[in-house]
């Protein structure tokens, strides 16, 4: 690292998944590092996103499965839940992550922490509460914020976001969710299990339009059949109104305008990158999607890198952690830069059953004009499906014409764990025959991977 007169070797803007890992790696490798956070230390995922949502989903799924356990001879006459205790459980889990707005974690590693909005005033300098901090390198990981959809009168009607809905004192009697993505589906299921009447709308023709059709239809079937959720695909919410204590949601579906009255509205659609940080003063290019970077995550200013949802709305937390490590590597080893490889990055939804996918989907293959083969192994073919009385999920594999694994999807209990086998195969160019030949533990869910692989011809 060349000698400079700057205050720090590296300043990281944002302490979420995109910033924290890089700050710690750089510090451990001898750089003088500062991290600036405008909101809560630890960022979105552990404080408001993945972690608290999963903690509450765990409680919800335990309750849901216990209610269905009579099939196995298990009965309880006093089965119930206490929502404040569920909320207390969520808070405990967040606290145990060590994030929870905790600066000690960074300070102990030697990373200097600053709280406030950072704004570039020159390419090597940011202003944080009028304190000027300079550095040789920067990583921008300022994340994104909820982008409000164009819904008439939304500004005059109270609504929830994925961040606020987890803090409610009790589940609402009814809720209308605008958006059919991962967060929306998880929250829909969580609330439905705790007794809320849930409507979930999506502009596309099915939920999870970015995944294979079977995945979207399977999760829709679970939501409708098992959770009694009202799924409204091809629906555009046009206006909202307040009517006493209720809210009226007016939407267009099938060419006609309809309305539903609910207690609460949740806006869980798109997100917009937090780019209002003086990027022009640092000569960093950006557009509506986010900051523009090259394959090494380097911005138009070569000393400034970027990671996370500031780059766009398509990355999972595991992708963002990978980007953070890549940024740190490229700053530490400017002559041996690496690029993030998303081949084996899993995409997961922690519903019941879990949904996970990796690599290419059928649509991806068609867009790339690839010849491909697919196979599906329903879970009712394996012994575990029988012992656990779970028969609706599946494992799907996508291979090239020679049988090389390109990707796959899993809808199953523990799908988020099962998917790694397919991820490794896709990453290291394994063939379906390699997976089919591998002995799989009897009574494991992964037996379905072997069967799917065996069906590729």
């Amino acid at each position, binding site marked *: 690292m060349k000698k400079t007169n700057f205050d720090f070797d590296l300043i990281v803007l944002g302490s979420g998944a995109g910033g924290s890992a890089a700050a710690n790696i750089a510090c451990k490798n001898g750089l003088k590092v500062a991290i600036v956070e405008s909101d809560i230390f630890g960022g979105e995922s552990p404080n408001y996103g993945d972690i608290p949502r999963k903690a509450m989903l765990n409680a919800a799924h335990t309750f849901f499965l216990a209610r269905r356990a009579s099939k196995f001879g298990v009965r309880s006459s006093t089965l119930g839940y206490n929502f404040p205790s569920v909320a207390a459980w969520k808070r405990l889990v967040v606290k145990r992550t060590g994030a929870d707005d905790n600066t000690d974690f960074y300070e102990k590693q030697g990373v200097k922490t600053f709280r406030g909005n950072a*704004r570039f*005033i020159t390419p090597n300098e940011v202003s944080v509460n*009028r304190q000027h901090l300079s550095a040789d390198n920067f990583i921008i990981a300022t994340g994104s914020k909820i982008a409000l959809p164009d819904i008439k009168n939304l500004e005059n009607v109270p609504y929830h976001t994925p961040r606020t809905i987890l803090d409610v004192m009790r589940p609402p009697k009814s809720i209308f969710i605008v958006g059919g993505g991962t967060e929306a589906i998880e929250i829909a299921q969580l609330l439905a299990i705790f007794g809320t009447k849930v409507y979930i709308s999506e502009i596309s023709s099915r939920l999870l339009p970015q995944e294979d059709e079977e995945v979207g239809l399977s999760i829709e079937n679970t939501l409708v059949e098992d959770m009694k959720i009202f799924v409204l695909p091809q629906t555009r919410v046009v206006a909202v109104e307040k009517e006493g204590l209720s809210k009226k949601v007016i939407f267009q579906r099938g060419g006609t305008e309809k309305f539903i009255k609910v207690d609460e509205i949740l806006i869980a659609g798109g997100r917009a990158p937090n780019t209002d940080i003086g990027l*022009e003063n640092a000569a960093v290019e950006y557009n509506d999607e986010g900051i523009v970077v090259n394959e090494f995550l380097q911005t138009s200013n070569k000393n400034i890198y970027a990671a996370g949802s500031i780059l766009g709305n398509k990355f999972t937390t595991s992708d963002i952690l990978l980007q953070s490590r890549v940024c740190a590597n490229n700053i530490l080893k400017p002559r041996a830069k690496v690029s993030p490889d998303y081949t084996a990055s899993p995409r997961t939804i922690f519903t019941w059953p879990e949904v996970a996918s990796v690599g290419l989907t059928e649509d991806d293959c068609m867009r790339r004009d690839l010849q491909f083969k697919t196979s599906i192994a329903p879970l009712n073919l394996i012994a575990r499906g029988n012992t656990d009385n779970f028969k609706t999920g599946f494992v799907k594999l996508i291979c090239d014409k020679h049988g090389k694994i390109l990707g796959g999807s899993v809808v199953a209990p523990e799908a988020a764990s099962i998917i790694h086998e397919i991820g490794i195969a896709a990453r290291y160019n394994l063939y379906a025959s390699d997976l089919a030949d591998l002995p799989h533990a009897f009574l494991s869910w992964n037996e379905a991977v072997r069967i799917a692989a065996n069906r590729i011809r």
Partner: protein
Amino acid sequence: MNFVIKSNGVTEAYDSYKLEKSLIEAFRITKSPAGQAEHSTKYVLAEFQKWVQDKPEITSSDISRQVGKILGNIDPSTAYIFKNFKSII
């Protein structure tokens, strides 16, 4: 209070009166009707105030860019004149 770092490096308190004067001058150059100019100036100042309130320190180029953006949505020709002032603050 918000502060502005000028292009010569000097920092001074943000003065909305200076910005108002620059806007009035820009509207005068584009020969906007007086009522419209007054209304647009008030609108731009209010929108800019919303934007700047959580930013303790900004640069004079930030002002030029942000005001140009707000003005551009309602009066592109005045926005062009405003953005090309040599010195506004």
